């Protein structure tokens, strides 16, 4: 199962409790327009999976289907099956609030809430419980420490989150997601609005988080995918403008000896 996955898997839904996320034969539509076709992708627990591909290939759309946030902002519909540790997330009985608590998300642009740094991190915790101040203090500190932000903000926790720099804001958003202890963290081009130094910090952070967390990251930056991911999935479109998963494999294999010619062309900068 951990071997090359480049040949198209059969679209039969399998019980896969050992996979963090498992997509089988997923089609995504906006209204009646099909934007993704027949995506079957495995996300291994404790690994970083990078999704790369040219603009408009449906990378962001796919990641937004994984925590069902896409259906909130548009008329997105899904066919096929996506499992989270063996549970179908598109089942009628799924509670979306519980699902999104387990599958966190960091967005393209840093989007801290217009409140204090402390309240930003505590927000997700307070949504589900009313912990005592000391418990909350500990949770906030450990989330900010995990997000490599604690030393920079420990003396200004009551200041507005909007006073932070862009890179700090994005790490705050990561801390905010970590505070509720998700099992999977989805990152939708988290560095695209950041400068190279802030980007480097986020990349180091992703590497350090990987021990306890499964990460799926969409990135425009191929070097980034090569640096930080264990596995890489390459999406692309054809003339019909419908996105497809072309190939998924260990990152070293994709960047060294990809099986598919389109993947090689993209990685060598011949298109996209």
């Amino acid at each position, binding site marked *: 199962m951990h071997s090359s996955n480049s040949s198209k898997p059969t679209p039969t839904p399998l019980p896969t409790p050992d996979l963090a996320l498992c997509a089988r034969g997923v089609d995504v539509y906006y209204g009646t327009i099909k934007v993704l076709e027949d995506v079957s992708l495995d996300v291994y627990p404790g690994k970083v999976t990078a999704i790369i591909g040219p603009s408009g290939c449906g990378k962001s759309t796919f990641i937004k289907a994984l925590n069902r946030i896409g259906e*909130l*902002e548009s008329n997105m519909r899904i066919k096929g099956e996506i499992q989270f540790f063996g549970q179908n997330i598109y089942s009628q009985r799924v509670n*979306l609030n519980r699902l999104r608590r387990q599958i966190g998300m960091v*967005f393209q642009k840093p*989007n801290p*809430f217009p409140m204090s740094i402390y309240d930003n991190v505590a*927000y*997700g915790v307070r949504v589900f419980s009313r912990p005592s101040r000391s418990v909350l203090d500990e949770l906030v500190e450990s989330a900010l420490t995990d997000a490599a932000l604690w030393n920079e903000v420990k003396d200004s926790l009551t200041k507005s989150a909007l006073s932070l720099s862009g890179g700090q804001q994005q790490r705050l958003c990561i801390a905010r*997601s970590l505070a*509720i202890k998700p099992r999977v963290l989805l990152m939708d081009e988290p560095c695209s609005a950041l400068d190279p130094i802030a980007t480097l910090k986020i990349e180091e952070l992703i590497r350090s988080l990987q021990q306890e967390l499964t990460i799926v990251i969409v990135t425009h930056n191929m070097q980034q995918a090569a640096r930080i991911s264990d596995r890489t999935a390459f999406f692309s479109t054809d003339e019909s403008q419908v996105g497809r998963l072309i190939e998924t494999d260990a990152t070293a294999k994709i960047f060294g000896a990809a099986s598919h010619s389109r993947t090689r062309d993209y990685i060598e900068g011949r298109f996209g």
Partner: protein
Amino acid sequence: MTTFFDKQLTKPLPFSRNLFSYGMGTIALLLTGFALLALFSVLFEIFRQGLPGLTWDVFTSLPAPTGEAGVPTGFGNAIQGTVLMVAIATLLSVPLGILTAIYLSEIGKTGAIANTVRFVMSILSAVPSIVVGVFAYAVVVLATLFNYKGFSALAGAFALAVIMLPIVVLSTEEALKLVPRQQRLASAALGANSVQTTFKIVVASALPSITTGVLLAIARVSGETAPLLFTALFSQSWIETLLNPTPSLSVMIYNYSGSPFAAQVQLAWTASLVLLGMVFVTNLLSRFVTRKR
């Protein structure tokens, strides 16, 4: 040394283009002056006529009976009435208006019900206030409330609330819509349900603009006269109950400004100044609230 490029930069534009530009600038400035002239002449006249009558007695006394000199005169009861009725109208219209706006912006969105409510609200905001007064007269004044039938502060507050409601709804909806969708998504991604997102994130971030809308609505109804003529009427005494004819600054100005007695005309001018001051302070407050964050 003058080069070709220097000449390119320093050569003046053709005379006709300069003339047009200066001409339009002058016309715009003149017309702005005209608009301000009208505004400032109103302000100037109110200050000139109202200021001499502005004493402490104005706030603490009742209007003196006509013909009696040397007695402290004022309109404390009218200030009391205006503040009271505007306060009750605010208590009635603000919770209702904000919840309606939340329905429009967060729940109903572009659905049939929301569109109908939005349409009705924009019509209601364009209804002349005298019509609202007649409506309140028919609904409240002619009805028996708490064993009382007739003109009352409650009826006046009801009429003012009807005028405030569409202003609060429409301005609050705009304020809620301005909260970036990214904020809502971030909240949802942390497992918050839509009620939590609405109140903890959307309303919280929109609060300064919502407050501005409410204060502007208050400023607007503070000077309404027509709806109060039909509902609160007027009285020469202090307010003791909500179920009696109630004085207000605007109706007082209306009644006294045409009076043959110079003392009453003077009171009307001073009342105008006080009302202007109250509206000005409310507006100032709304500026302060928005600038703070």
